Each structure stands twice: as C-alpha cells, then as structure tokens.
C-alpha cells in the first residue's frame, strides 16, 4: 500500500522527539482519524536550525511528519511557510488517496509551530 520512501520514513523516522526549550511548538490533530502531530522548532536569525516531531497516528502521518522536518531543517521561515501538505506528499513519492486527506497534515503542524514562534516574538516586543 505504501511506496519505499514512505516505508523508509515510517520505519526510520528522522528528527523524532522533542525540544525542551523550543522556540515554537505547533500541534495539529485530525479528530476523525485520531492522527496527532506535534512539531518543535528552534529558530536562529530567521533560520529554522532544529526541528523535532512527535506523532501518534498511522504510517502515512509518521512518514509525512518525518519528511516535513527534513524539508524544513536549515531553511528560512518564509521558505518553511511555503511548504504545503501537497509538497510533503510529493516528496514522499505519493500517498494512498484515502490517506491524503486525513494523515497528510504535517506541513500544517510546521506552520503552527512557526506561528507560535512569531506570536511569542511579538509578545516579547
């Protein structure tokens, strides 16, 4: 059902875990399917220097979380905000159609983490 890229990221997820003093945390959940993704980021001079995730969900959700962290690490926040769920699915070589809607929400979690970071920054000022 899954291709090799998805299987690889699902069985050996990159950047899994949490960042204790994260600059931003984003969480998205899909109440119907039960998938839940939390992303932690570290930001330095507008560059996303570190990123970790914790995901409870199906293989597609885990693979998508892993892939989005690989795509975002080292990039500027503007570039990260432009990563879409579709980009993630494409980088994974495609996801089964029934998974595209429910489990392909990792980019949303990334965007939520960046928004969280920006809000905190605004509050400090």
């Amino acid at each position, binding site marked *: 059902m899954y291709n*090799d890229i998805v*299987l*690889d990221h*699902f*069985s*050996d*997820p990159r950047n*899994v875990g949490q960042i204790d003093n994260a600059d931003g945390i984003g969480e998205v959940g899909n*109440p*119907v*399917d*039960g*998938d839940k993704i939390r992303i932690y980021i570290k930001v330095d001079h507008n560059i996303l220097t570190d990123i970790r995730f*914790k*995901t*409870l*969900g*199906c*293989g597609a959700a*885990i693979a998508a979380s892993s892939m989005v962290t690989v795509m975002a690490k080292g990039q500027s926040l503007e570039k990260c905000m432009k990563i879409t769920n579709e980009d993630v699915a494409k980088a994974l070589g495609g996801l089964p159609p*029934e998974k595209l809607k429910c489990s392909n929400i990792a980019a949303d979690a990334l965007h939520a983490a960046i928004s969280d970071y920006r809000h905190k920054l605004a509050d400090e000022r």
Partner: protein
Amino acid sequence: MILEKEQINRYLRHIIMPEISGPGQKKLLDSSIVIQSESAEDSAPLLYYLAAAGIGHINLVVQDEQGYEMLFANLRDLNMDTNITLGLMLPDMQPDNGLIKIILGSEAYVANSLINTVDTYMPMIIAIDRGWEGYIQVLKQRGPMETVMSALQTAVQQREMQPKDEDKMGRVFSTCLLGALTTIESIKLILNIGTSAEIPFDFDLLSMSFNDHEKNDPANTNFFAPKAHNYSKPASPKRLADFKALVVGTGGLGSPAAYALVKAGIGTIGLVDYDTVDISNLNRQILHSTSRMGLPKVDSAETFLHKLNSEVNIIKHQTNFNAHNALEIISAYDVILDGVDNFPTRYLLNDACFLMKKPMIEAGVTGFDGIGLTIIPGMSMCYRCIFPTIPAPGAIPSCSESGVLGPVPGVMGFIEACEAAKLLTAQGTLLTNNLLAFDALDLNFEVLQLEKNPACALCGTNPTIRELQDYKFVCET
C-alpha cells in the same frame, strides 16, 4: 531502510507505536534471550509470543524436551526472523545489551536453576507456575536474587512435606499467562520502556487476584508462604471436554483464547472469522503462520489447533458475524468469547448473547492496555451497562491506527479462556460485575467493582433493546 519491506509489514502494529517505532523493532530483532525451562511444552506460550514479536535469537535449555520438534517447526513457520536453538548456551551469546535470561518452571525447578546459575546473567526474569497461580519478577541485581532464592528454598522444603496438589487445568492457564507476561517484561527490558517488574508480581487465576508487593511485603515472600485458599474446590469438577465454546474472531484475542481452551481440553471449539491471514497479523496472532498467509483464518487456526490437540472438535464459521446470523451461530454453544476488533460487532455480540442468555467473556486491547469482563445475562452487568452506546467512528483509535504490542492481546485472550473454563467447570471466582484493566507498561492489573446499570437499554429495568438492531459497521482501513 533499517528494516526490510516485509519486516515493516510484519511488525506494522509495533512500528506504529512511538514507544517502539522502527529502531525499537530493530533492537528486538537484534536481541538474544536464553530460556531455561522445565519443559518445552510449558515454554510454548512464551516462545510463540517472543517469536511473533521478532526477538532475534532464542536459546532454549529444557529439562524435558518432549514435543519440541513440532513446537520448533511451528515457531519457524510463525516467524523466520527468530533464530531458535535448543541445547547449551551458544558461546557467542554474551551478556551484552539485549541478552536476557528467563527461568520458567515450578518453584523447585526455579530454585534449583538459580542455585546452579554459575554466571549471573542480569537482567534475569523468573516466572514460576503453581497450579492456577503464577509469580514473575525481573532481577537486575544480586541482592533481590538472593532474597527470592532463599524464599524459594524454604517454600520448596515446606511443600515437600505436603501432599502434592497439582491442578493440570490451572497450570495450562498460569503457564500461558506467564508466557505472555514474560514476553512483555522482556520487550520492556530490551527497549528500556515502562517499569520493569522488579517488585515481584503474582496472580491467582482461580480467584482472579493480582498483587504487586509494593504495598505489603517488598521481600516478596507472600507468594511462597503456605496459605489457605479462600475458594473451595468441587469434589468432582465438571469436565471441560463436555462443553462447547465459541471464539468470535481468530485474531489477536481469539488466537490465545482458542489456544488455551484447546490446550486445557475443551470438547468443541467454534471459530468465527471471515478474514484471511495477513503478514501484519503475525506479530500477535499465534494461531497463524507465514506459510498460511492468504488462507482463511478459520482454516489456518484449525490446522494449528489440531496439531495442539487432535481430540478437539472444531467447527468453522467462515463468515462475517452480523445481525442476520449472530443468534443462530451462538445458539449451539455454552459460552461465547469475544475476540473481535471493532465496536459494532462487540455491541452486536453483547446484545445477541443477552437475548440468547449465553454467558459471554469480553476483552478489548489497544497499545499497551487491555480490559476484560465476564457477562452472565440477567445475573451480572453487560457491556452496555458500562459503555451504553457504540463509540463514534474514530473516537477510539483501532489497533491498525494506534498499534498493539503483540503479547498484550495474548494476556487478555488467555484470561478470557481461563474465565470460560472456570465458568464451564463451575470453579473459582469470575470477573462478573468486575472490570479488569491491564496496563502492560507498569505490569498492573486493576479489578474495578461495578454494578448492573438499572438504566441499561439492554439489561436494565426498562429495556428498549428487545431484538438485534442495525449495527453501524465502520470500515477498517
């Protein structure tokens, strides 16, 4: 990839859990376990669950080898990833990370093995069976090992003066449960997750009591002390061979339930399943095997169970259990065991058993947790008394979404079989009006006392469900 494609599918239910994931499964595949057991037969449930979980190397040292050829052939067919050898310790098995030693047997056997252990392999797990009772402890240090050793020696000496009271049926269930629990403790040690049972844990399946000794006696001698049992044994217990049990679903729960009932000598076992064997079943569904992938599960289960006990009469129902056939299927049986994987069928089964006045043994699992209860229609609370309506689709994730540790359904399925056997032979205390909650990460069983709900739509004072309804079937992906 760190795992082969086939391995990812085989261990899918493990890999999906964040506590295990792919790297954790890889650790299990790289690990080695040495088992010292009184007999090959007693170690079978332990071996099936260790092999299903993908433990890489198992070295079995047994006193009584009888039956090991069939056992080893079954294990190889269950999972080729597990390399299993019989006999002396292999020289390359050194106590590095991932090597665990398990000692499994009677008090006398475990006491002797501990005394004769020249090299002290740590960690070590001791699992002791005694009739319907069992004891398990994880030993990481010499101190606790010496404490348990001296308690064991005293117990063995005391028991030599008493008449032997070996309950064969009880031993089937206690060795089964010990096998699944010991597998869980092994996996927790290898992956360094949860709390290991360094504080001894014991159970009595006849009275359904589960104790850890944290509160009372950290020196753990309670289990070994001679004690008067608070249950009376019938003078001539009924024979399990005279009864018919139905197992609905031959998967994670149905496999251990059917295994233990057939091993204990049930006369007739009915198996309901519409599904075929898939590789992702094999981390936990011990009745099935690699060579039987693609076959109907009821056929695969029959092959296994007949090898286990050629005398058992097996009735196969290869069908989707639904509102049209439920009453007819269950009508021929004395007890019904729930091994289904979805809520609509669970409610259907509960309602059908109530309407037909059939006792039902209930269990459910997810992740590292399980629940169980026994329902006698009209006498004790039913499933709807606690959980009145079918959860909305997705409200509770199914095993395919949230994963399940292989031996966890093993624990709950073995308990189901034990409850069915006690009910049929009129022995011991049942989990009626009690909800058993199992937490594998902490090795904890809680028994919650509950009561019939007078407002229950099925078995309450003003029931609104008087016949089977439309049960909304949620598609499992």
